């Protein structure tokens, strides 16, 4: 960056700030949430909401993997399901249970949208995240 744009020091400064910021999210020792907590930030940041954190540990006590990953069609990929609130209200994905019938309903925005703003989509504590040398900054999908 610096080599290519010697006359635009602000660019390298910006890149440096961005790198440090992304690095601090993906690799800092600060984050120590549960193994398999999934952060979903496809649209949240842009919409001014906190990212969603899905705790696998809490749900697997109540449901087997099959219920969500076979019956409800959740792909095995963080952020790979393009979930939005319309789908949830229509009873798809999270909305299949979070409907006020099986589990609490969508009015409890902040129970799901509880992540620190700017946290990237990730499977927390996944093998790739735990590699001492990160293959890429900012965690993985």
């Amino acid at each position, binding site marked *: 960056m610096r080599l290519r744009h010697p006359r635009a020091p602000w660019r390298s400064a910006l890149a440096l700030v961005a790198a440090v910021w992304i690095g601090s999210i993906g690799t800092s020792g600060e984050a120590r949430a549960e193994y398999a907590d999934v952060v979903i930030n496809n649209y949240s940041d842009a919409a001014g909401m906190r990212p969603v954190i899905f705790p696998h540990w809490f749900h697997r006590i109540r449901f087997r993997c*099959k219920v969500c990953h076979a019956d409800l069609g959740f792909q095995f990929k963080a952020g790979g399901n393009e979930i939005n609130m319309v789908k949830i209200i229509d009873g798809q994905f999270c909305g299949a249970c979070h409907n006020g019938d099986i589990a609490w309903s969508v009015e409890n925005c902040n*129970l799901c949208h509880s992540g*620190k703003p700017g946290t990237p989509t990730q499977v927390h504590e996944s093998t790739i995240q735990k590699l001492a040398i990160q293959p890429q900054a900012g965690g993985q999908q």
Partner: protein
Amino acid sequence: MIRTLRNPAVALGALCCTLFATGTALAQQDKGKAVYDKVCVACHSAGIAGAPRLGDAKAWAPRIKTGIDTLYGSALKGKAPAMPAKGGATDLPDADIKAAVDYMVAAAKDGGSGAAATAPAAAAPAAAAAAATKPRPAALSFNRLLKPASKRNPPPPEDGIHDPQNDGTHALQPPLQVFESLPRSNAGNRVDWVKALDNNLIAPRWDRTDPAAAPVVMDLNIVREVKGSMPDVVYPHKQHTAWLDCSNCHPQIFIPQKGANQISMAAILLGQKCGVCHGKVAFPVSECRICHSKKKNVMPVKNAQAN
């Protein structure tokens, strides 16, 4: 004072007393923290059922005003609506519970007026204490890249991913509240989920709405011979079909035919094949021997000549 200090013996005695007092105070503080971490944390970390949160000066101030003995009383005998006697740990001695109260009160004062105001009376020995308790720089920690045991399974507001500014975060269940009653393992959530299910400690539903639905468990082991010195892999359908549907793995991830799948640890590490779950939600790849569990039939090595 000056006269006292002129006598070196008296001065030394006074110094010893101060150091001893500091030591006891510190030990007491440690004990309080230990009890808090074990018992009180379940509610007082997240503020469950109206419990004042650790370090929340506003919530603690009116309680502290009632006097330390009232607080001791509430902790020992319980308090409506939700505080059980001794926080539920009735087997602990009164002194331990009092130490935990002291610890939480000190934390509330810390939170309110900064670290400097912890104990004005202890200002003089503070310098000596600071030397003893000053945290070492991270560069000198035993293994700077490894997560220390004290930082495992923290409650959501302290886990670095949840936003503590968000009211919903504090309503979420702290994982340890559940994990303590489940069999432990050495990795992942540090819970042995397969064992928890086998022992009926958890009853996850097989169907979204029908609590009585049960999986059709298939008890079939697939042995995969591996190159190199590692034991062969035994893949048990049994544990997998207890959680998953056939369609979760077949045919997209694994072609249901022996010998048809190329699997390598490199692929697994990158999140493919077994790595779709293992290393993300099921036990991670650090637990080599759970999979690599079948000892190879090795030809006996003739090492007589080497000797």
